[in-house]
């Protein structure tokens, strides 16, 4: 019963956020030079007055603003995100076509960053706990500090320069070698090979974030009474670290991972642009070049929906991991 109310509150919140995004979209397009009909006419390449007037009528732009907002909301609710006159395809179709590539990239980067970041953070905290190899802590934290300040798109370029141009180990552009006409496992291996550089470049920033977070959370837990008790009753150090400290320190990391997903989506935009990865980010870059506003708005809507969905999942996972958390705001988030 309590769980049901928790889920419904969260769902309601998610819906509200999406409503907000739609309203923002509605007003943003009105900030563009000319009215939406002019924009659309410009995009389709035909500019005569009769055509524009026709468009105005067709999209209800001659109605009062509030009615227009209602019409727009109704359209989005029925999954009509508009039409991309540049590509002569409905916006939703364009985006859905690119969605799997982005999800693959984000999932790979997310897994890499969580695993490597938590491992590095735990390693750094371990040197503190045991009082040995303090230099390792210094190395890990300094690298994290530097990586934290590195522009993602520049790091991606460096990765291309080193691993693709100079060493020639990995492909730099695209998602698969279409010309080779591979299928089955050979195709999967090909995609995996193309995935290495973009996913790792995207992950690096978040590795730094999670390493710092894990270390800080572990150091905090280390000072708690139950850890002292565990040590006092003779639990081996390795076990205290893994079972008592790390497990309790992971909660804020999970919370934070959910919060970071919005940033991961933004990072994917840059990574995809650099690596010509055929996902939503690359689509957005192309839409920018073509000033395809309908497509840009649609992409904002879909990436927001993606992030909201991920946040919802993280909330549920968090609740599952820590049943103490009520339906209130996620506790335990680091300050």
């Amino acid at each position, binding site marked *: 019963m309590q769980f049901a109310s928790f889920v419904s509150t969260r769902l309601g919140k998610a819906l*509200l*956020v999406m409503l*907000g*995004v739609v309203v923002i979209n509605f007003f*943003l*397009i009105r*900030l*563009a*030079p000319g009215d939406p009909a002019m924009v659309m006419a410009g995009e389709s390449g035909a500019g005569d007055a009769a055509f524009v007037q026709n468009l105005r009528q067709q999209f209800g732009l001659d109605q009062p603003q509030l009615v227009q907002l209602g019409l727009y909301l109704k359209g989005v609710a029925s999954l009509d995100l508009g039409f991309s006159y540049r590509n002569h395809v409905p916006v939703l179709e364009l985006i859905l076509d690119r969605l799997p590539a982005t999800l693959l990239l984000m999932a790979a980067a997310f897994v890499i960053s969580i695993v490597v970041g938590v491992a590095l953070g735990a390693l750094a905290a371990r040197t503190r706990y045991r009082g040995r190899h303090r230099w390792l802590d210094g190395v890990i934290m300094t690298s994290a*500090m*530097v990586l*934290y*300040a*590195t*522009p*993602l*798109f*520049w790091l991606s*370029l*460096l990765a*291309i*320069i080193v691993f693709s*141009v*100079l060493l020639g180990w990995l492909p730099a552009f695209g998602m698969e070698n279409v010309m080779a006409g591979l299928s089955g496992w050979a195709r999967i291996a090909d995609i995996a090979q193309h995935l290495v550089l973009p996913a790792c470049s995207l992950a690096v920033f978040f590795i730094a974030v999670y390493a710092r977070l894990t270390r*800080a959370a572990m*150091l*905090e837990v280390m*000072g708690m009474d139950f850890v002292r008790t565990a040590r006092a009753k003779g639990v081996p150090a390795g076990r205290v670290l893994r079972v008592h400290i790390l497990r309790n320190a992971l909660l804020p990391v999970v919370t934070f991972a959910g*919060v970071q997903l*919005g*940033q991961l*989506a*933004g*990072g994917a*935009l*840059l990574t995809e*642009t*650099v690596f010509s990865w055929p996902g939503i980010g690359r689509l*957005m*870059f192309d839409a*920018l*070049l073509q*000033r395809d*506003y309908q497509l*840009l*708005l649609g*992409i*904002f809507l879909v*990436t*927001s929906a993606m*992030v*909201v969905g991920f*946040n919802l999942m993280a909330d549920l996972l968090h609740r599952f991991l820590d049943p103490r958390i009520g339906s209130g705001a996620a506790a335990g988030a680091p300050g």
Partner: protein
Amino acid sequence: MKAFLKRFARNPGAVIGLVLFTIVVVLALCASLLYPNSPWMMAGKPMLLPFAHPRFPMGTDMLGRDLLSGLVHGARVSLMVGLAATGAALGFGVLLGAVAGYAGGWIDDVLMAVTEFFQTIPQLVMAVLVVAILSPTLPSVIAAIALVSWPPVARLVRTEFLSLREREFVQAAVVIGQSPARIVFSQILPNAMSPIIVMGSFMLATAILTEAALSFLGLGDRNYMSWGFMIGAARSVIRQSWWLSIGPGLAILLTVLSINLIGEGLNDALNPHLRKRGE
């Protein structure tokens, strides 16, 4: 103040950061003296290698533009946009957080819902959208960055206000009949200043990274040379001349790193109690 400076100077990272940042600021201020000509102009032969010509220590790009001149002028744009956006975001965030924290009740609920909304949506995507629609000019870039970076400040200020509001000196001010505005600005805000300053420094670093990302995507103001644009331009010739992107990339990295180091130093120096607990 003296104790604060002492604590700050004891942190080697913070001092290194301050030195680096000072160099960047001085270069940015002297950009027009060092390179009076526009960094967009052709200055020499295209594609000169670094160190190949004494006049162009960092070489030239595919259009013969002097890379070092671009770097120095780019520092100006990075700092200007970063400072302006951070200032705007701080102002708005403090105002909103102060109102929410001081007023409480439904005003607090509504303002925090708005804050959470802006924190949830993908910030870079939103910034890109705003600049694309408003057309890429310096003011719209600043506005877009400010628009996506105020929420953490609002939350921080609200939390500070919620706890400070209950303190005795604030209640005393209420009792002697000071106006709410006066209480906020003369009693509460000065006491919440240190965490705001620390957060402001980290926001400046993020703002500079966001500006670089925007101009890398071609959304920078074309009247001003910027580091992100230089990297974006280098991308198209990455196979022939890969060194073009190294300089501007390092410039961004060092600037952002120096600000983060200063921020950590400020954090340690302003909150000595926290440091003891964290270490």
